[in-house]
């Protein structure tokens, strides 16, 4: 914190070492009487100063659990966390709860999807900002107040003087998210984790918040971990993209290369299944068949195999490893190649209809209903 912005700025970018390194992070939920559930399964990535790293994937793939593990916010009971979270070389997972509490705010800040539940409902916004300034920057209440006002103004809250005394419920969703950003920023964290910060907001408000985050990274050299399910948000904001599927990173790349040349069938499938505002109308979407409930266990297969457009035999027999190659990383036995990419469709007999192939129907059937087979 004694560090100046200039210091951070000179060290940012690819040549600077990673500020945060997540190494082989594994989070297992173990409730008594239930099968252990691996929510995050060997996730590794680096974050550098001034860099925006994205974690993208659909609901339940482990994005939030990853961020909560980094922040030390997972419950102690019933959760096993393995691996390392290195911040400036120190493993945060080895710190005590108290030590970690000091790190939160100062070194690591977080913005959640639902700002109302993460703001204190009975404390005015202004006090919530000044408290952070007092605690993390050692300012007096008197000295903190004008800075708090400045922070609210900076995040685009109109009439900040008046807003200082407002309670969270008096603000709209967009303003609450701004207030939360102001509180997170007040401590000047070097790493900011934003978990779906705009998902609950309207798109015109989302555009404002994303512009704000972008400016923040550019101006202060803060490292941003952006968690989202929206590939559009990723395309506009994120430098390095990690695509998660069922708790594992399946593909990684820099923003432009990943979108220009998606290699993993899941990434490719996602890009083909979302309607684009600038897309050709009347062109049919190519859905990914089935749902995550069709997944196979990673231990002995590719989890995505039942939904994949081009599985081969080995995909159901063995776990694909994440293979690094230059700036890219890929976990796949049979990646999408140029030929498929230029055809703009995953494969020749791709399911363009909504009647997806074998994968679509309840293999998740809790009772293992055998009659499901017959109807395929």
């Amino acid at each position, binding site marked *: 914190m004694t560090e100046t912005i200039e210091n951070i700025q000179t060290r940012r970018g690819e040549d600077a070492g990673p500020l945060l390194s997540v190494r082989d992070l594994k989070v297992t939920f173990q409730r008594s009487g239930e099968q252990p559930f691996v929510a995050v399964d060997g996730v590794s990535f680096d974050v550098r100063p001034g860099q925006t790293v994205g974690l993208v994937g*659909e609901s339940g793939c482990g994005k939030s659990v990853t961020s909560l593990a980094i922040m030390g916010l997972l419950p102690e009971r019933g959760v096993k966390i393995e691996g390392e979270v290195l911040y400036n070389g120190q493993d945060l997972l080895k710190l005590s709860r108290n030590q970690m509490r000091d790190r939160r705010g100062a070194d690591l800040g977080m913005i959640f999807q639902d700002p109302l539940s993460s703001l204190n*409902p*009975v404390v005015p916004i202004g006090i919530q900002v000044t408290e952070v300034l007092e605690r993390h920057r050692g300012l007096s209440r008197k000295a903190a107040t004008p800075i708090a006002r400045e922070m609210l103004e900076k995040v*685009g809250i*109109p009439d900040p003087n*008046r807003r200082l005394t407002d*309670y*969270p*419920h*008096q*603000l*709209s*969703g967009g*303003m609450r998210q701004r207030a939360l950003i102001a509180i997170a920023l007040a401590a000047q964290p070097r790493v900011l984790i934003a978990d779906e910060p705009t998902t609950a907001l*309207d*798109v*015109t408000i989302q*555009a*404002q918040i*994303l*512009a704000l985050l972008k400016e923040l990274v550019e101006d202060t050299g803060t490292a941003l971990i952006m968690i989202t*399910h*929206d*590939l*559009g948000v*990723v*395309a*506009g904001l994120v430098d390095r993209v990690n695509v998660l599927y069922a708790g594992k990173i399946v593909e990684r790349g820099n923003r*432009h290369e990943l*979108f*220009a040349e998606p290699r993993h069938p*899941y990434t490719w499938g*996602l890009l083909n*299944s*979302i*309607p*684009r*505002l*600038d897309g050709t*109308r009347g062109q049919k*979407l*190519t*859905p*990914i068949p089935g*749902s*995550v409930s069709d997944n196979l266990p990673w231990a002995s297969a590719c989890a995505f195999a039942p*939904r994949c457009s081009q599985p081969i035999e080995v995909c159901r027999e063995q776990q694909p490893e994440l293979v690094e190659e230059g700036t890219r990383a890929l976990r796949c036995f049979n990646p999408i190649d140029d030929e498929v990419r230029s055809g703009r469709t995953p494969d020749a007999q791709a399911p363009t*209809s*909504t*009647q*997806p192939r074998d994968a*679509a*129907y*309840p293999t998740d*059937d809790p009772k293992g*209903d055998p*009659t499901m087979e*017959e*109807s*395929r």
Partner: protein
Amino acid sequence: MTATAETTSAAAPKDGDVLVDVRGVKVHFPIKKGVIFDRTIGYVYAVDGVDLQIRRGETYGLVGESGCGKSTLGRAILNLEPPTEGTVEFDGVDIASLSGETLRRKRQDIQMVFQDPMGSLDPRQSVESLLLEGMKAHGLAKNEKEANARLRELLKAVGLPAAALKKYPHEFSGGQRQRIGIARALSVNPKLIVADEPVSALDVSVQAQVINLLEELQDEYGLTYLVVAHDLAVVRHISDRIGVMYLGALVEEADAEELYEHPLHPYTRALMSAVPVPDPVVEDRRERILLTGDLPSPANPPKGCRFHTRCPWRQETRCDTERPELRSVQLEGVSPGHRVACHWAEQIASGELKPHEVKAQITEQSDLGGDEDLMGPASIQEAL
């Protein structure tokens, strides 16, 4: 239907076969306050004067941000929310005038598909009984054989295996539940399906399955759709025509293609420029029209043009005082069916008027009634 056409704005479509004719519809919700006596202290102007026509066999998309009144308008069309003012004609008949058997029969013609497939399906009913319910009520399952054949056809249509019949909603994934919801809507042979946010609760990878399904069923059964959604990319993909709503009223209406090529209303432009596109090349060179501030409260909508508090093209005259009408404009590449509610649409389109900076205005969240000391929700939206 055509008989009423002369009484409304000149721009109303006369071509095509109109299935749903919405004229001057308003839905105002009273805001009550008081412990002993319920005093009405104001109104939420959820829908405040909407004219639109949905043609037989088309998909009409209604798009706008949360709280703009899309769902309320959809419900008013179904007469689930009786309009405070205005009329809705379905197939030439004023729905509000119906009662008893005739109303029941009309209701069969209009079905709804909801956002949250779990919330809209009774968890204690098997898929079979969910689907049979409506069919029985409307006399579509006269005997068991007929009913069985129909059930199988329905499941096949929405891409579920026959074995699904004996299962319960919780045994399915979100996308499959939405298929069940669609099958239930289809079960009574409707003419119109109103789908309110049909894919927004689904995983991205699954949304396309449901979008494609809706499109296929439309071709197969000649259905007419009203799709209500906040996601402009989804709406543009699925709709033939689109109405853009802002604070209870339509601000623009056009063919899906034309709306994208020639957005005329400043709000439509801003909305379109804000939708992220999954392509970094596009994102990098895009010009964004960033709006400042929030949506004003529908309990206290701005005078004049409702968008004037956030409009980057707002002018000294007319904008704050005179409410713009939804009208056709004479511009190159703009067809007569394209309507816009902006006083300055022509001058903005020609580039004569340029956007300027807008200072964000505060939106009061606490003036919607509700006792402040109760730590109430920040908006009525949340209370629902």
